[in-house]
């Protein structure tokens, strides 16, 4: 019976995930001003996410191969549906009514895009040419463009980077990478003109947050103060003044790292970086040992997307990246991203644990 539960669970990854989740609950307790309701709600989210993880860990990777294209096309259709009929919440069109509930198709695309690209490269593995990379780029940029237009910059960044990782791992030549970087820099002025005002504001504000301390610079200024005042060992759990006096906005969700950093200091940050690195390292080992190109690319994309989550979030809280809506994976409050991330880990575990079965 126990084997039924643990057969497809990767022990090391699972332990690292549990440690991060526990950390998340501890910080959430402080960030929510000791709200047990918040903490238990998040605990429920985690149980759901872990269940999803377990389910996907038990789905052999080749089933996913078959699902790749339909899921991607469904996701794309929903995104177009959002663009046309979506609900506007907080100035962004992200939600789509489907019968009784509403869904956020961009969240689905976080998994669908890597799946699609991995499937595509795997399919043309033997005959990969430049045009395949071009097609792949189109598969990537269409949903990213739609999501960025909603606007949901954070998700767009995450999906874009996951696609880029797939392209990179699929062996896109260095010359082309260099060319793209040059072209990208050259097209910055154009990109700038496409961005929404508030997005420009966030980028400008990063350069000089003091310019608008009560407006768009407020988040960055206050979170930077929280991190900096934490010092080497932090102010102690439940003792963060920035946190408990309500100076940190969105402190249970996107800015929870400011709370953690204020209360546990540089030492705590090191521990957190280590745990995150542990997850990433385990993901990379799984990636390196994955049996097929599809699983290698998928595992690599999932692992590196997790890294992107963590890096972008901590970078924005500590004031070196613009404020985009990216949660700190496994720590931030909220069910949706937690489920998506654990779904990814489930796939990783499936890839790791179904290897032998595939090979024999």
């Amino acid at each position, binding site marked *: 019976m126990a084997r039924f539960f643990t057969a497809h669970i990767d022990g090391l990854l699972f332990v690292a995930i549990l440690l991060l989740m526990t950390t998340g609950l501890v910080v959430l307790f402080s960030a929510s001003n000791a709200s047990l309701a918040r903490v238990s709600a998040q605990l429920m989210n985690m149980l759901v996410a872990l269940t999803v993880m377990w389910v996907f860990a038990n789905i052999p990777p080749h089933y996913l191969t078959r699902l790749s294209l339909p899921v991607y096309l469904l996701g794309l259709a929903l995104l177009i549906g959002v663009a046309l009929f979506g609900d506007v919440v907080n100035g962004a069109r992200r939600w789509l009514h489907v019968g009784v509930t509403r869904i956020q198709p961009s969240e689905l695309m976080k998994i669908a895009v890597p799946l699609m690209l991995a499937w595509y490269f795997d399919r043309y*593995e033997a005959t990969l040419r430049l045009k395949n990379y071009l097609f792949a780029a189109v598969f990537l940029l269409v949903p990213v463009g739609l999501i960025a237009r909603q606007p949901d910059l954070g998700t767009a960044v995450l999906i874009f980077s996951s696609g880029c*990782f797939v392209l*990179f*791992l699929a*062996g896109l030549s260095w010359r082309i990478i260099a060319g793209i970087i040059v072209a990208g820099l050259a097209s910055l002025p154009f990109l700038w003109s496409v961005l929404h005002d508030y997005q420009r504001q966030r980028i400008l504000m990063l350069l000089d947050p003091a310019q608008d301390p009560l407006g768009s610079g407020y988040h960055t200024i*206050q979170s*930077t*103060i*929280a*991190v*900096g*005042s*934490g*010092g*080497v060992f932090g102010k102690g759990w439940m003792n963060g*003044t*920035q946190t408990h*006096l*309500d*100076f940190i906005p969105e402190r249970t969700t996107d800015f929870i790292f400011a709370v953690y*950093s204020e209360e546990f*200091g*540089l030492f705590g*940050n*090191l521990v957190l*970086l280590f745990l*995150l*690195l542990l997850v*990433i*390292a385990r993901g*990379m080992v799984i*990636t*390196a040992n994955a049996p097929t*190109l599809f699983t*290698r690319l998928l595992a*690599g994309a999932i692992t*590196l997307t997790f*890294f992107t989550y963590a*890096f972008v979030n*901590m*970078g924005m809280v*500590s*004031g*070196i990246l613009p404020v985009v809506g990216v949660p700190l994976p496994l720590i931030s409050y909220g069910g949706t991203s937690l489920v998506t991330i654990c779904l990814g880990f489930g796939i990783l575990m499936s890839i790791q644990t179904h290897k032998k079965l595939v090979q024999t």
Partner: protein
Amino acid sequence: MSELTVNPGIELRNSRLEIYHFRRRLAVAAGFVLLMFVLLFLRFFYLQVVMHDHYQTLAEANRISIVPIVPNRGIIVDRNGVVLAHNYSAYTLEITPGKAGDLDALIEELSTLIEIAPKDRRRFNKLMEESRNFESLPIRTRLSDEEIARFAANRYRFPGVEINARPFRQYPQGELFSHVVGHIGRINQRDLDQLEADDRLSNYRGTVYIGKTGLEHSYERFLHGTTGVEEVEVDSGGRAVRTLSRTPPVSGNNLVLKLDAKLQEIAYRAFGDRRGALVAIEPDTGGVLAFVSKPGFDPNFFVDGIDPQNWHELNNSPDRPMINRALAGTYPPGSTFKPFMALAALTYGKRTPQQAISDPGYFNFGGHVFRDDKVGGHGLVDMYKSIVVSCDTYYYVLANDLGIDNISKFMGRFGFGSRTGIDIAGESAGILPSQEWKMRRFKQKWYAGETISIGIGQGYNAYTPLQLASAIATLAKDGVMFRPHIVDYVENVTTRERTPVEPKPLRNLDLKPEHIAVIKQALVGVNKEGTGARAFAGAEYASAGKTGTAQVIGIKQGEKYVEGRVHERHRDHALFIAYAPAENPRIALAVVVENSGFGARAAAPIARQVLDYYLLGKDIAKPVKDDDSGTSD
């Protein structure tokens, strides 16, 4: 599986090569991940170690707010403990315009819960013009418990509206002391600039009011107290979470005055509807016993900003209630100047008491005829008679003999033409004519003919009632001059320690006692058998006095032409100076009644009521009516 069997070697080699390439890429990615994490760590190190002190300071500044605790303002009482200014606490409905959005709609909505009169709105609008947008401004004061409850239940509907318990200043005596005690008002930009210049601004954090006029203004430093400080931890919305430390405020000191509220009331009522001023001084100390300027106004209007309608009324009234006549109104002294002229003549040896002139009823100087009041003259007039019957001709001649230089020198020592230094601000210096003054003022030399009318207190002469009172008090005290002061002592509220305002002899005029005796005897004669005799008929004490009539030039601030009142406003001002008891003066006073004709008729009876009350405790307390006693000064 079939492909594998066809060409297993190639497939396997390719696969190994693929894996090798893939793993190289993965290693690059891992390197990138590590690099980025190192970058993050460096950023954390920079923030949390290198810049830690900086951010620590910022975090402290964020959470600790210094909240000032406004001290209680000292109260003001008269010499008998009658309260002239005190504080009460009341609930006020306040709006912060910056947070409120559409103000008109908001006030409209509020008025369904709490009664807001048009007057309150006007006052609020005026306050808004004078204040900054983020200040919390009162729209209604003294809310009832029911109103507070009604608002509390609906509070969520009114952003930027609050009910606060605030201390208010109240002047229970109303207009009676408006020109002495003065009033406080909301701190304006000018006050702020002044406070900053004096380095007192920090003590006014949180304070809304400051003394604007009178004692409230001049004793501001004593009344205000020391602002306390509470260090509180606040959240980002500025709400206090808990107190870290507290330095209690130190209440302002109380003022105990020399003034006698009852005496003030008697004097004020004695004026009836007339305009004028009365200053009564204790000759031994210079303490001011009564200080009346009529009409007054209700200072309570000003405490929280006067509404425009009342302001307009006060400001445009032909009676000019806002002008402190006793302090800043300047009047020709008329015949009240004569005793001082006589004293000058004795001092400079220009006359002996017995030296007499024959008064034909006029004095001819260089072809110009100066007339006496009494047609045909007073006959043979010596110094005593000149004062008792108020003979003009005697003083025309005397002025000419003394010359302007001697007159201005002597009168200057009596305090005419210079500020007395009383302890409230806004005093006028008046005009003591002299050659230099005329050159300064008109760039013209002095003509000898101008000296003649100076002798009877006319011409350029213009003095405040306070100067007159001070001069007669100095005479009563045989030439010792004190600085007039209203406050007796400042009392520390906690230690009960008293800091007296020391009687300060300004100077001793070094007058010869025999000269003073002559003048005093004549002044007693005025009230016994002269121009003041009718007003003082039957007095149970001996008093000294001198009547006076001043031709109207108009009070300094200028009259406004109002039809129908022109005639009345061109009538002469009535003056009277006096002290009593004659042998050992305890009170000296000066009265000016505007546009009331002869001093004997309007001013002397007021003085009589004041002296009767002060010396005998008689409370007649009825307005003095015009009578026809004394047709001449």
